[in-house]
């Protein structure tokens, strides 16, 4: 029972994290660290992405063909992997963002009901 509950929670978080990652790499190619920092920064330190979730998510998204990893040099001169959005990923992002807006709007409506 406990397991099943956790599974559901993870699904929810996972879907959201995917959306955040896709959005973050949609503007320019970024490496893992930069993605985590960017999400944290934009969300005003509310969303802190742990490596334990970030990297599996990145590799999963890459395997699904939404993002593409390219080996490159970071600003500190070290080799690391940069992720960018693929064309399919861009469409996927638009769809998911739309879904998210609808869902969060609906939740807001319910919560803010007076």
């Amino acid at each position, binding site marked *: 029972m406990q397991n099943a509950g956790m599974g559901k929670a993870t699904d929810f978080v996972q879907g959201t994290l995917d959306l955040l990652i896709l959005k973050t790499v949609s503007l320019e190619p970024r490496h893992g660290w930069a993605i985590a920092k960017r999400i944290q920064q934009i969300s005003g330190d509310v969303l802190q992405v742990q490596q334990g979730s970030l990297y599996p998510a990145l590799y999963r998204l890459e395997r699904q063909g939404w993002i*593409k990893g390219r080996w490159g040099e970071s600003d500190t001169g070290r080799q690391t992997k940069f992720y960018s959005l693929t064309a399919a990923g861009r469409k996927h992002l638009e769809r998911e963002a739309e879904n998210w807006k609808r869902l969060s709007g609906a939740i807001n409506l319910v919560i803010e009901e007076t």
Partner: protein
Amino acid sequence: MLRAFEKLRVWLWMLFHHRRATERLNAELEFHLERQIEENLASGMSREEAKHAAMRSFGNATVLREQITEEWSWTWFENLLQDVRYALRQLRKSPGFASTAILSLALGIGATVAVFSIIYAALLNPWPYAGADRICFVNLLDKAENYFVPGLTGRQMRVLQQAHAIEDLVGLDGSNLMVTGSDAPEGVEVAELTGNGFQFLGVPAMLGRYFVPSDAPDGHDPQPVVVLSYKFWQRHYGGDPSVIGKTIQLQHKNYNILGVLPPRFTWGDADVYRPLRVLQSQTNRYTTMLKLRQGVSAAAAEAELAPLYQQFDKETPNGYPKGYKLRVRNISYTYIQKLGPTLYLLFGAVALLLAIGCGNVSILLLARGMARHHEFAVRSAVGASGSRIVRQLLTESLILALSGAGLGLLLAYQSVGLIVARLPEYSFPHEADFHVNPPVLLFCIGTAVLTSILFGLFPALQFARPEISQVMQSSSPKVPGSARGRQLHTALIAGQIALTLLLLTAAGAASEGFLRLMHTPLGYDPSHVISVGIPILSDITEATRVKQAEYFEQLRQKVATMPGCVPPRFRPTARRHGVAGICPLRLWARRLLSSRRRASILSARSISASCISPLSRGGFGITRRPCTERHWRWSISPL
């Protein structure tokens, strides 16, 4: 589409550059860690502190790496190997179960595939000819349902050709000729077809060409051309491809060899095919083979042809049996009549065998699943996921099913040859091409594999999420299955008993049929009797015929003086309206001989000649259809 390609590329890259991918992942994670340390340092921590804090926030790096690499590494393959090894160990631990299941499947698959392949090759699709399902003979049935194929004169054939139901027709005849002009004379069976015969049958020549209507124009003597059968070509010319265009001498007449037919073309089992010369007279008749128009049923053709044949009957008084019935029958008809019931019964029996095999495996798998209830509970309790247990069971079932199917395949390939070798020689068309039928093979293997998977997974679906505590607490490792499981089990056992009874009944009916066949009164006693066919030459002079007669009398006396032999009798076996008109005489001799002596009689067969000696009743216990003198005279008269 592009995305699918990209996905495949990424997956393959990771699969085949496993080490490089792992190195890169490590570098990537290390880069992240360093940035974290740098950030911590910037916030005023000491180097040591910064490092520890970063490591803490990073969590368990090994688990993280495994989590990532599992997806794109060979892990799934390693798991599969592990599953296979485990499954093999499990099966080896219960050899009785494994061998019963595998043998049940193998027998069912092998027998069903073999018998169906034979039915398909011998009865459903034996002919290489174009539109074989529309090629027919007209049969006239007398009151006792005996049929014969009436011969038609050239004029009657032309009348028949006008019928709407008929697309085309071919006149057939045949004779036994002698190859002359070479060192040793050799008897050949010659089939004669009207010029359109090969176009009618629609099988292209393997070498050279076949003859066409322009080689045998209406009302003229046909060109002296022949087409060789594959067998004769191999036997007489050793398969020499340069024979095309050469001549062969038959009965002192030269024929131009036009071509060689493919091995499956064995029409009339002839050695040589030559154009038929249709003589325009009232007495020369030819067997006629029809091809119905597309979409015309046999009944419709019968309705249209009946008045024509009535007319033909009037033209030749006493030719047709009184009150005959006309039937248009496909060339497969007699074979289906003769061999069909036996083969279909056999097929029913082996299909039941397959059903029983599948039933066996289902019950065994189900029972085994229940017995292993405890094992699954334990594995589940120590952390095996439901999908992992399902995969494990699937592997086991598949190993069973595939071993059974593999063995069945082997059995099928072996038994097709064995069964065909035991079929009576003339019970199927010699054109038939026997081989394992791929669609049936796939169907049978599919059935077996599906059954195994279905019933192999049944316990998995039931037990993949067992009430662990309940099972663990029960003292016995064998927990009775749920009520539903028991019901299914009972239903399966009942079904299997029913199938087995059905199989027994079918087998009983089959053996009774065979027994009846064995004890059918033949009208004579076939034991100790051998029959030696001697072809009669047709194109010979009267003087030669007299010489032949003298020779046969000598042959008869010679055989009669052999110890252990009663004097042989001769009888013509050709039916008056026989298909090819080849009329061999058969020499009957009581056989009480050693095989060596039998061989010396059999060698008489190579002397191609005919004999004149009236066959008397009795002597061999021949009581039915005795050959009367009248009959016999007809048979050796020139065609």
